[in-house]
């Protein structure tokens, strides 16, 4: 034992003797131009010790022998040199060829990034993982120039609205997602942790290979695959946090609200009554009356009655939940041998809503493998299983009380959420603890009744996968055959209890509706690719076919009166009344495509890509086939010999592309003239002494048989360049995107007798824009610990205009008009000029009326008489802006210092408008909603400085600029501070990397919008589910 101790001692001593400090100096130069490289990080491996080379490429560092120096620099291959006994180490660093050979997916193949001819943006998966979002659609917000994301709803699990290069059509303008080759129209199922790379194909030359589905852009996603390096990696990622609302409307409290609506109603007897008898008596006489749904109110004759005057309910506080929980766990293992690779993951995501009665949870399992069965044959598969479940709080509906939030606004502040103990109605019935009836606006459901008496459940089970084989029969030749299946079973169930809180808020029988929806798309794809390099000429030819069939089947029913309505009995078989079990529905579409691409490069400088796709689809009976060509050229200017001498220019590429692509996203049978005979809706009629339904059949809509896909033609000119050893890199694109033959929901005159609008290929839309992405990376020498940072920003300007209707009718939307010369969905109404101070002023302005017929009086809204004809009519309506921002931007700042990393991410939009229908309601007469405190300043003869017109007059609520607000905002979307525990510590636990972080989302929002949140999907805010502010802690652990 002693010997051992001594030996150990000696060894330490030896070590100590060896470990003397020496100073190493040297010059770092670049291999290509032999010039000194400043700013190269020189670090002692495994420690925090380090320095940077100076402007002359020189450095000096104190080290111990046998230390390893790591030379690293952006765009340069990292080099490691072990210190022996020399004191001068000059280093020649090679450019990082890996960066140049970085391969990006382009659809049915991949290409070296440097050989790209189209506009393709890549997003790093670690950036996508910073935002606590269920899906990557939301995480893409602000990350890519030209990609606009509107979260739309704060409802957990809700898909975001993603638009690439503007909104090209009034029809479905959403991009398609291609996950490992499977084409999908939403990706809310995908856990961002599973994503390896995301590419966004923006211009027509890039998306044309997707033919009739490429018009709105394509988002290509590859999930994590194993590597054939003989290692296996285990990673565990998790975060958990709390979400809160960040904004609240300023509404009147009970007493002020009552007095305000009495004053607005302006009936002398009522205000006298209120003043003389007080709040409780007024409420009793003018609101609750003798209705049995309200407790007997405290009064002189009923001293034990319910004291409404003591109640002050903040309905916003009641329906918004505090500290709603969000959590995510992701465990993955991947690896492989020379012949086989695998990647397996499992994840669980769970999010509570900030509004009560909404939540979402999801389990995702994923398995990707490949196996090289023969030298020339590889087989593999990608498979995801997803199970998600959610509960919807309903969202942004025009009807007051159709969502929890709008119902909360319709409840009066004097209404309790539930009646207190001892509440008794006039019939002596005990109301203690019962959900209250709305006493001001009676036609509304108490939000607690919505949550407690309604049990919706939406479950989705989805299988997405493909099995492929790849044959390489000869050099350069690859044949890939791929069968994929996207199968989704959705189960929607809703149970409503029987209850009665008022004549409106009631259900006489309990009720169950239950339905299953099955969606499946099966696709069979065969692709042949051939690479040929002949001296300076390089060809890649790809050709193939795909065939797919989509099937939808749904079945459902409903029934009432479950005798023992406990949850285990919520099945249709238990219903005893009103059973309707017969509804089923089916839909099918098929597509067959032939596609090809030729990529040609000459001398690495001149690049050309041509693609062609023919799509045959069952959707267009008279136009089965569509043809979609594209071509693009690129010139890598920096590869020209005469450019070699230019210092600090790393690369420069010019691109130009053109293509025609299609949008076939319309319902499967929109162009079939069909008899509708599946009533009872619309066609069955009641006959007979016993009053029974007789089956009916008719044509609901005379459709346009000759309809076809919309065509989008796009020209894109772009430049990519890098400066100062890639410290600065940038991409600038200019594009013009013309949608032709847009399918407009052409409204026929009423006398055509159409139930729905017919579709015709008539409209044209132009989107033009500029996109700029800039990135700057650098390292600053301050001390021994270098500070690395990067700043990246992207900005895009979009101009959108409907250029022609070509005989199609204008589209009137919800307060919007889509018409020639306007942006799509432009708010259309009057310009609000203030308030008429006198009747005479109104008559003078609207001289076409007489004193007895004029609909405007003192205190009414003064709208601009645009054509000065003395009356306000349709001719005076004007463009009040539209809901789409013309400017989208994102700014990301990243800093690494020692073991800390910090990321700050801002995102914003500008130029969009929101119609604030919540404000419209809260600045109304108070009959349907609580009033905003801004109603203190309503105009009256006594308060002529008031800025709100008479809320009792319908003409004051015509669509006007009064309620159109700017939707511009700048958001600190995410700020994240991470700390990586030093490897020296974590190694003991066999952990390669252990990072913990704190993160906050939507910490600040700068906006002038006065509603809850400026992210509104349709542009009209009826009480949209707002985005929440989230604080999280998280960890990334790699073994």
């Amino acid at each position, binding site marked *: 034992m002693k010997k051992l101790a001594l030996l150990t001692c000696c060894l330490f001593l030896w070590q100590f003797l060896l470990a003397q400090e020496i100073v190493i100096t040297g010059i770092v130069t670049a291999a290509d131009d032999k010039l000194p490289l400043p700013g190269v990080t020189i670090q002692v491996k495994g420690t925090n010790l380090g320095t940077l080379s100076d402007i002359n490429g020189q450095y000096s560092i104190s080290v111990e022998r046998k230390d390893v120096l790591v030379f690293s620099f952006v765009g340069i291959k990292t080099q490691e040199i072990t210190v022996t006994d020399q004191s001068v180490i000059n280093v020649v660093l090679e450019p990082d060829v890996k960066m140049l050979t970085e391969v990006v997916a382009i659809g049915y193949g991949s290409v070296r990034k440097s050989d790209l001819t189209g506009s393709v943006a890549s997003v790093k998966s670690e950036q996508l993982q910073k935002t606590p979002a269920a899906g990557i659609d939301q995480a893409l917000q602000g990350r890519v120039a030209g990609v606009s994301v509107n979260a739309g709803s704060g409802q957990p699990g809700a898909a975001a609205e993603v638009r690439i290069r503007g909104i090209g059509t009034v029809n479905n303008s959403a991009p398609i997602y291609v996950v490992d080759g499977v084409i999908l129209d939403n990706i809310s199922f995908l856990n961002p942790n599973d994503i390896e790379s995301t590419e966004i194909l923006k211009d027509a030359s890039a998306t044309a290979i997707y033919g009739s589905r490429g018009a709105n852009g394509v988002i290509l996603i590859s999930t994590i695959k194993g590597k054939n390096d003989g290692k296996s990696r285990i990673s565990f990622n998790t975060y958990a946090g709390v979400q809160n609302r960040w904004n609240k409307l300023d509404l009147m409290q009970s007493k002020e609200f009552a007095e305000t609506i009495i004053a607005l109603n302006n009936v002398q007897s*009522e205000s006298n009554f209120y003043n003389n008898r007080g709040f409780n008596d007024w409420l009793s006489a*003018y609101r*609750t*009356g*003798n*209705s*049995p749904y309200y407790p007997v109110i405290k009064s002189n004759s009923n001293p034990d009655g319910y004291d409404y005057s003591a109640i002050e309910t903040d309905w916003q506080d009641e329906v918004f939940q505090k500290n709603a929980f969000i959590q995510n766990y992701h465990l993955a293992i991947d690896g492989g041998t020379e012949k086989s690779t695998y990647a397996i993951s499992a994840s669980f995501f769970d999010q509570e809503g900030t509004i009560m009665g909404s939540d979402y949870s999801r389990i995702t399992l994923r398995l990707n493998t490949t196996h090289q069965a023969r030298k020339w044959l590889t087989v593999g598969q990608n498979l995801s299983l997803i199970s998600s479940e959610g509960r919807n709080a309903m969202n942004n509906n025009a009807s007051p009380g159709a969502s929890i939030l709008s119902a909360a606004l319709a409840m009066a502040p004097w209404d309790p959420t539930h009646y207190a103990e001892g509440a008794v109605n006039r019939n002596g019935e005990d109301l203690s603890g019962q959900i209250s009836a709305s006493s001001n606006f009676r*036609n509304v459901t108490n939000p607690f009744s919505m949550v407690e008496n309604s049990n919706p459940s939406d479950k989705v089970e989805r299988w997405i996968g493909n099995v492929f084989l790849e044959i390489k*029969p000869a050099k350069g030749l690859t044949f890939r055959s791929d069968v994929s299946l996207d199968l989704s079973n959705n189960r929607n169930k809703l149970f409503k209890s029987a209850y009665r809180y*008022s*004549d*409106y808020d009631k259900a*006489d029988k309990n009720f169950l509706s239950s339905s299953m929806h099955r969606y499946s798309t099966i696709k069979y794809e065969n692709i042949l690719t051939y690479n040929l390099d002949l001296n300076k000429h390089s060809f890649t030819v790809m050709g193939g076919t795909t*065939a797919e069939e989509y099937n939808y089947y749904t079945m459902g029913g409903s029934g009432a009166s479950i005798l023992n309505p406990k949850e285990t009995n919520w099945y249709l078989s238990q219903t005893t009344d*009103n059973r309707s079990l017969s509804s089923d*529905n*089916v*839909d099918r579409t*098929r597509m*067959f495509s*032939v596609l090809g691409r030729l990529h040609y490069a000459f001398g690495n400088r001149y690049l050309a890509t041509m693609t062609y796709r023919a799509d045959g689809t069952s959707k267009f*009976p008279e136009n*089965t086939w569509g043809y979609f060509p594209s071509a693009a050229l690129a010139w890598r200017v920096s590869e020209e010999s005469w450019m070699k001498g230019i210092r600090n220019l790393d690369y420069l590429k010019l691109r130009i592309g053109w293509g025609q692509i299609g949008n076939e996203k319309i319902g*499967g*049978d929109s162009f*079939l003239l*069909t*008899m509708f*005979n599946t009533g*009872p*809706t*619309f*066609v*069955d*009629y*009641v*006959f*007979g*002494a016993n*009053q029974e*339904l007789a089956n*009916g*059949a*008719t*044509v609901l809509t005379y459709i346009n048989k000759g309809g076809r896909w919309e065509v989008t033609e796009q020209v894109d000119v772009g430049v990519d360049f890098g400066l100062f050893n890639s410290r600065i890199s940038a991409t600038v694109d200019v594009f013009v995107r013309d949608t032709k033959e847009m399918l407009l929901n*052409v*409204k*026929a*005159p*009423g*006398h*055509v*007798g*159409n139930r729905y609008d017919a579709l015709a290929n008539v409209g044209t839309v132009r989107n033009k824009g500029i996109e700029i992405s800039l990135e700057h990376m650098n390292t600053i020498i301050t001390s021994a610990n270098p500070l690395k940072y990067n700043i990246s920003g992207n900005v895009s300007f979009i101009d959108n205009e409907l250029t022609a209707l070509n005989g199609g009718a*204008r589209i*009137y939307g919800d307060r919007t008009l889509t018409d020639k010369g306007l942006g799509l969905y432009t708010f259309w109404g009057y310009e609000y000029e203030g308030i008429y101070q006198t009747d005479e002023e109104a008559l003078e302005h609207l001289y076409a009326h007489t004193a*007895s017929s004029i609909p405007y009086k003192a205190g009414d809204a003064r709208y601009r008489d645009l054509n000065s004809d003395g009356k306000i009519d349709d001719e005076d309506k004007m463009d009040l802006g539209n809901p789409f921002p013309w400017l989208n931007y994102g700014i990301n700042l990243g800093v690494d210092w020692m073991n800390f990393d910090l990321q700050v991410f801002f995102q914003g939009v500008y130029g969009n408008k929101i119609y604030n229908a919540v404000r419209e309601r809260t600045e109304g007469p108070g*009959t349907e909603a609580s009033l905003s405190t801004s109603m203190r300043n309503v105009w009256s003869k006594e308060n002529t400085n008031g800025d709100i017109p008479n809320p*009792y007059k*319908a003409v004051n609520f015509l669509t006007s600029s009064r309620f159109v607000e700017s939707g511009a905002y700048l958001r600190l979307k995410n700020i994240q501070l991470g700390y990586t525990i030093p490897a020296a510590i974590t190694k003991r636990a066999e952990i390669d990397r252990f990072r913990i972080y704190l993160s906050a989302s939507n910490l600040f929002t700068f906006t002038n919008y006065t509603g809850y949140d400026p992210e509104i999907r349709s542009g009209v805010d009826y009480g949209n589910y707002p985005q929440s502010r989230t604080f999280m802690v998280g960890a990334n652990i790699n073994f």
Partner: protein
Amino acid sequence: MNRFMKKYMSIKTWLIPMALLLLSCNDWLTETGPGVTELDDFFSSGNTAIQSVNAAYVPLAWDYNSTFINEWFIGDVVSDDALKGGQNINDMADVYDMENFKTNTNNGFLLDFYRAQYQGISRSNLVLQEVPNMQTDTIMDADLKDRLVGEAKFLRALYYFRLVRVFGGVPKIDFVILSGNQWKQPRASMEEIYQFIIDDLLDAEKKLWVKSKYSSEDLGRATKGAAQAMLLKTYLYTHNFVEAEKWGKTLVKQAEEDGEYNLCPNYKDNFTLAGENGPESIFEIQYMADPQSDYGEGFGFSRGTFSVILTRSRASKLGGGWGFNKPTQNLYDSYETGDPRRDETILNPSDEDIETPSQEIYLGSRYLNKKYGMYEDGPGNTIFKLDHESRGPINTKVIRYADALLMYAEACAENNNLTDAKWALEKVRERARGGDNSLLPSFPNYSGYTDSKADLIKAIRQERRVELAMEGHRWFDLCRWGIAKQVMDAYKANESEEAKGHMADFISGTHELFPIPADEISLGSLTQNNGY
């Protein structure tokens, strides 16, 4: 490897299968999908002919689209008989504008009403295009085929009638508009539309069956009598009293001699669930109790009517409805002393039955329309409990025999046939008396009438008002009599200050019609009515 290539990679081996693939895939792509019935394949059996006619009835029953569009919102509310009601003046603001002669061209009620009628017309046109060319079969013999065509013609006439008296002349569409090139159609004149209605009705009258010929499952379909009553009515609207009297006589003969129609012994039986499609019924819009009916989001998905919930008292004690279509004091006072019809028409709630006066007394009127409230249709004459939250089963009466008798009386009186006019008038009054001969004396022994044509016409008009009150006729009668201005001005002068404050002046030559909806003006390049 090489052998593999030689065998499989030659062009020839691939060409043939590729060509076959492309050929077959065209068939694969164009194959008719599951669950799709194309128009060309549909009209192949008698059953489908019946179905297409059934569907043509459906738009009659639509009383909701994006707003409630019951015809009585015009017939009663705009007239001196009723006020709009509801929770407050903003409730159904479109109707508020209409009743106070402040209608804008973008009135949503009028747009929905207009479009619903044309959907009925296009459904009728589809029947009239397809069914006459069909072969008869075991289900549809020639007689039935005739009847089906007759039903479609009757319905087309009825839809046009509903349009023309609200909007005046409208586009005359007597074919199926298949192509966008045919979308632009001009407004026909009011006279052309009335003539078109008459032509359809004359043909329908020949083809339709008498009421008794229908089996009990087919109760509710258009009948010969219904076509005759509509002819009588349409001729009155066009002031062709000779033809009106002729068709009135035909109908009366059918009733009195063939026993097809008769007045119900009790006036109130016309307004009960049990009395639906009774002896007095000539045409009704059929509704049923169905808890599965949606609220209205299905856009016209009607099996029950909204009339019940719309007109019922807002007090939960009286069924907790929405309190629309509130009779005026003017109507209440217009009944003769002791007329039992008053209390079968107007419900005057006791103070105890009013729960929230501010919402249940609308501009001074506390009265309720009793005819569609189903106040006594529940067990033991209690308030009928709706099994759907907002839809009820009561049918809408379009024409009943008492209405036809009074129209006949009017036509006779105008033609100086005072004897038949008095007979018809007396027949209605006699039933109203309910056996109490101390009430409602025969013409001319009341209200200071003399035995003259002018007073007889006055008496018939007054009888129409009280007999048919709150059934949606009054406004249209006032307009066709040409006395709307006079009556409405007099009514306004005597209304409460509160109600008066909301009313604009009636302008003759404008307010007899409502504006063509602005959307239709712009979509169809139509001309607008005078004054809008």
